[in-house]
C-alpha cells in the first residue's frame, strides 16, 4: 500500500511540478538554514569525552578575601594559585588528578634541515594522558619519580614526531626546548578535539599543545605561563618565586572522581584544606566556597557555545516556522484543487483513513526530498562558514547525527504542516463532486 501511495505521490508531484518544486525548495531552504546553525551549535556543545565526562571534575576554590569580586557568574576564579595546585596535587585523595598550565618553547634539534620553530607546551602531571584518554604510539608518560625530581623529559605529539623524526620511534632521542635538552619518553597519537575543554582560558577551539612536560619543571626552570594570570589584590610579584607564593591564579586543576561517594569525600577534603589554610592566614572569609564541575558543566560555565550561536539557532527555527507556514499554504492550495479526484476515490470505496494516509505519504515524500536538498544547502552554508572563519574549521561540519536529523526534521515539519490540509481533503463529500462532473 505504501508503495502505491508513493507512486501516487510521485504522479501528483509531476502533475504540478512548479508548486511541488516550490514546496521542496521552501523546506530545503528552511532545513538548510536551520541545519547550518544547528550543526555548529551541535559540534560546539558536543560532549568531548562522553565515557568520562561525568567523572572528570575541575576544582575551583574561593581564594579571595571577603569583599572582593570576580567576573564569573558565581564569583569564583576559574584557575588555582600555584601553591593550592601543588598542595592539592600532593593530597592523598583522589588517586588521579592533574595540575597543569600552558606555555611554549622554541624547539630545535641537532639538524641543519629543520629550522627552529615555536612549539606550544603543556606542563602537567603524569596522569594527564590516562585521564584524558590519550593513547601512545611510542613510549609512555613520565614516571611519578621523574615528576618529583623535575626530570628533563618530554612527550611529543604525533605531528611533531613526524616533523622532527620523520615518524620513527623517537623514544630516547633528545630535543632542545629553548636552551635546555629534554629526552623524549613518549609520542601520543593524534588528538582529535573539537573543543579544547581541558583548558578553556585561551580560546575554546584552539588546537591541543604538541609538547607535554612534567609540571615540576615550572618551579625548577621558572617556566612562564602562556595562559592567563589573574590577580585580585595588590601583590608585589617581581621575581618568579614571588609569583609561586602569590595569590594570583594561573594553574588549571582536574580530578577523577568515579562516583558520588568519592566526590563527597573530596568535597569534604577541600573544605578541610581551606580551613587548614585559614590558620596560615589565607582564605580570609566567613563562608568557604569551592566548586567541582564536570566536563559538560565546565563547558557551559565557560560559555563555550557563544551567545551568537544560540541567537542564530533560535532565529533559524523561527525561520523554519515561516517556511512551514508557507508550505501549509501551498499544500492547502494543491490538495483542495484535487477535491474532485478525491471525491471519485471516496465514491469508489476508499475510506477517509486511506485518503488521509495517502496525503500524508505525499507530504512526507516532499519532506524527504526537501531534507536531502536541505543537506546540500547546509553543506554550502557550512563551507561558507569555514571560509569566513578558519577558527571554526573543525566545528562547521555535519556529523552523522546531524546528517540523519536533517531529513527527520524535514519530514516531521512537513507532516505537521500537512495534517490540516490532509484532514480537510479527506473530509470531502463525494456526492458534490460526482454531481458536477
Amino acid at each position, binding site marked *: 500500500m505504501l508503495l502505491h501511495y508513493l507512486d501516487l505521490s510521485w504522479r501528483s508531484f509531476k502533475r504540478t511540478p512548479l508548486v511541488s518544486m516550490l514546496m521542496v525548495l521552501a523546506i530545503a531552504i528552511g532545513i538548510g538554514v536551520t541545519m547550518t546553525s544547528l550543526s555548529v551549535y551541535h559540534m560546539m556543545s558536543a560532549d568531548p569525552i562522553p565515557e568520562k565526562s561525568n567523572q572528570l571534575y575541575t576544582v575551583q576554590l574561593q581564594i579571595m578575601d571577603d569583599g572582593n569580586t570576580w567576573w564569573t557568574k558565581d564569583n569564583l576564579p576559574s584557575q588555582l594559585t600555584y601553591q593550592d595546585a601543588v598542595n592539592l596535587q600532593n593530597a592523598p585523595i583522589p588517586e588521579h588528578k592533574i595540575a597543569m598550565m600552558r606555555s*611554549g618553547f622554541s624547539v630545535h634539534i641537532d639538524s641543519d634541515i629543520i629550522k*627552529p620553530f615555536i612549539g606550544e607546551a603543556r606542563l602537567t602531571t603524569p596522569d594527564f594522558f590516562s585521564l584524558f584518554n590519550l593513547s601512545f604510539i611510542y613510549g609512555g608518560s613520565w614516571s611519578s619519580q621523574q615528576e618529583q625530581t623535575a626530570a628533563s623529559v618530554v612527550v611529543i605529539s604525533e605531528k611533531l614526531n613526524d616533523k622532527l623524526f620523520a615518524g620513527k620511534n623517537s623514544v630516547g632521542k633528545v630535543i632542545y626546548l*629553548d*636552551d635546555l635538552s629534554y629526552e623524549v619518553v613518549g609520542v601520543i597519537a593524534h588528538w582529535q578535539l573539537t573543543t579544547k575543554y581541558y583548558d578553556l582560558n585561551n580560546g575554546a577551539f584552539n588546537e591541543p599543545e604538541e609538547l607535554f612536560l612534567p609540571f615540576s619543571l615550572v618551579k625548577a626552570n621558572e617556566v612562564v605561563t602562556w595562559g592567563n594570570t589573574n590577580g585580585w589584590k595588590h601583590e608585589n610579584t617581581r621575581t618568579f618565586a614571588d609569583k609561586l607564593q602569590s595569590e594570583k591564579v594561573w594553574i588549571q586543576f582536574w580530578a577523577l572522581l568515579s562516583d558520588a561517594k568519592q566526590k563527597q569525600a573530596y568535597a569534604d577534603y577541600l573544605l578541610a584544606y581551606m580551613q587548614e589554610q585559614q590558620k596560615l592566614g589565607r582564605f580570609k572569609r566567613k563562608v568557604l566556597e569551592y566548586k567541582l564541575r564536570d566536563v559538560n558543566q565546565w563547558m557551559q560555565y565557560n560559555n563555550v557555545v557563544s551567545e551568537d550561536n*544560540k541567537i542564530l539557532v533560535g*532565529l533559524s527555527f523561527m525561520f523554519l516556522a515561516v517556511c512551514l*507556514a508557507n508550505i501549509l499554504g*501551498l499544500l492547502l492550495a494543491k490538495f483542495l484543487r484535487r477535491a474532485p479526484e478525491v471525491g471519485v476515490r471516496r465514491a469508489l470505496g476508499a475510506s477517509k483513513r486511506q485518503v488521509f494516509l495517502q496525503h500524508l505519504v505525499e507530504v512526507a515524500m516532499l519532506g524527504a526530498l526537501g531534507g536531502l536538498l536541505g543537506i546540500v544547502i547546509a553543506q554550502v552554508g557550512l563551507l561558507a562558514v569555514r571560509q569566513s*572563519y578558519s577558527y571554526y574549521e573543525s566545528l562547521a561540519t555535519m556529523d552523522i547525527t546531524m546528517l540523519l536529523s536533517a531529513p527527520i526534521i524535514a519530514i516531521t515539519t512537513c507532516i505537521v504542516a500537512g495534517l490540516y490540509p490532509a484532514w480537510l481533503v479527506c473530509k470531502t463529500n463525494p456526492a458534490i463532486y460526482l454531481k458536477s462532473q
Partner: protein
Amino acid sequence: MLEIKPIFHALCRSKVGAILLLIQIAITTAIVSNAAFIIQDRVAFLNQDTGYPEHDIFKFNVMTFGQDVDINQQIELDETMLRSLPEVIDAAMSSSIPLSGGGSASDFSLKPAPQEGLSVRTAYFFIDDHGINTYGVNLVMGRNFSEDEVLVTNNVDKRPSVTIVSQTLLNELFPKGNGLGQTIYFGETPLKVIGVVEKMMSPWLKDSRPDNLAFIPYINAKSLAQFVVRTKPDQRDAVMKEVENLMLKNYSKRVINNIKGLDELKNQYVAADKLMMRMLIVLITILVLVTALGIFGLTLFNISKRTKQIGTRRALGARKSAIIYYFLVENAMICGVGLILGCIAALLLGQLLMQHFSIAALPPSYIAGTAIMVFVMSLLAVFGPAKRAANISPSIATRTI
C-alpha cells in the same frame, strides 16, 4: 468607495490562507527587525576607528633561545636595524599589541596601592620613545618620552616615572580635564602623565574599557618579545617578507614567527562577529524572499479559486483597476494585522534577547522601518498576480467550469 466590508467578508470565507500569511508576516517582521538591529550593531563595531593606520603596521614575535647575548642590547641593535630600512617609518618593541586579543591590563589609580582611590581598568604597553611614531597615533597634548626617560634595565626593582595615556583614560580619572601633568599610580608606582593621545584602542575591542591604554617607557626584554613596525604606505608586504631573514642575520639563535599585519590581527579578533553579521544578512534576505514568495503564491491561488467571481464582477461592470484595487486592499488588510502582531512579536523577541543575552533594547525605529519594508514588499508581491486577475475575461462568467 472603500470596499473593506465585502473584502473582509470574502476573507472570512478563506480564513486559513489569510491566517497563514498573517503568521508569516508577523514572524518575518519580528526576525528582520531584531536581526537588522544586531547587524547594525556589528557593522558599527567592525567599522570603528581604532586610532592606528592598520594597513601600514605589522608585528612579529621574537623568541630567543641563545644564551650568549644580552637580550636588551640585542633588541636595541634590532630596532636600529629595522629603523634604518628605507621602507620603514619607525619600529619598536612593544610588550603587547593592540587589537590582538592578548596583553596586560591593570587598575590605574589616583592613590598608590594598597590605598584605595578612584581606579580605572587600563591596558598598558611597555614601549620606548618610538612608540608614538611607530603606532602612528595622534599626540594631542603634552609631549613624547625623552630618551633618558626610557628605562632599559634587567633590574626589576627599578621603576619608570612617566606615562602617555589615551584621552578616554585621562578623562575618566580626571573628569575636569586637568589630567595632564598629574600623577597616577600603576600599583604602587607613581607615573606622571606627560602626554595624551587622542585615540588608541587596547588589545581587546570587546573589553569593558576598549579605549583605555597607557604607554610606559620601560624596557626589560624577555626571551619572548614582540616587535611593531610601521612602514610607508604600500610597502608593508615587502618588509614583512624580508623581516625574518633580516632579524636572523642580526642574531641567529632565535625564532621569528607570527608576522602579521595589524589589520589581520583585528580581523582575527572580530572574525566571529563578522561571521554572525554575514549569517544574519543571509538569513533575513532569504526570509524576506520566502515570505514574498508565500504572498505571491497565495494570491495566485486565491485568484485561480475566484476566477469565476472575478469574471462575473467584470461582466457586471467592474473596471480592471477595481480588481487590482480589490487584491491590494485585501493584502493590505492581512498585512496590516500581520504587521501589528509582528511589531508586538518583535518587541517581545527583543526583550527576550535583552534578558538572556548582552543585546541592547531594540529601538522602535527598527520595527517601524521593518514594518514599512515588509508592507511595500507585500504590495509588490501581490501586484503581479492582481494584474493577471484584472485581465480575466468577463466572458468567463458565462461559462461553466
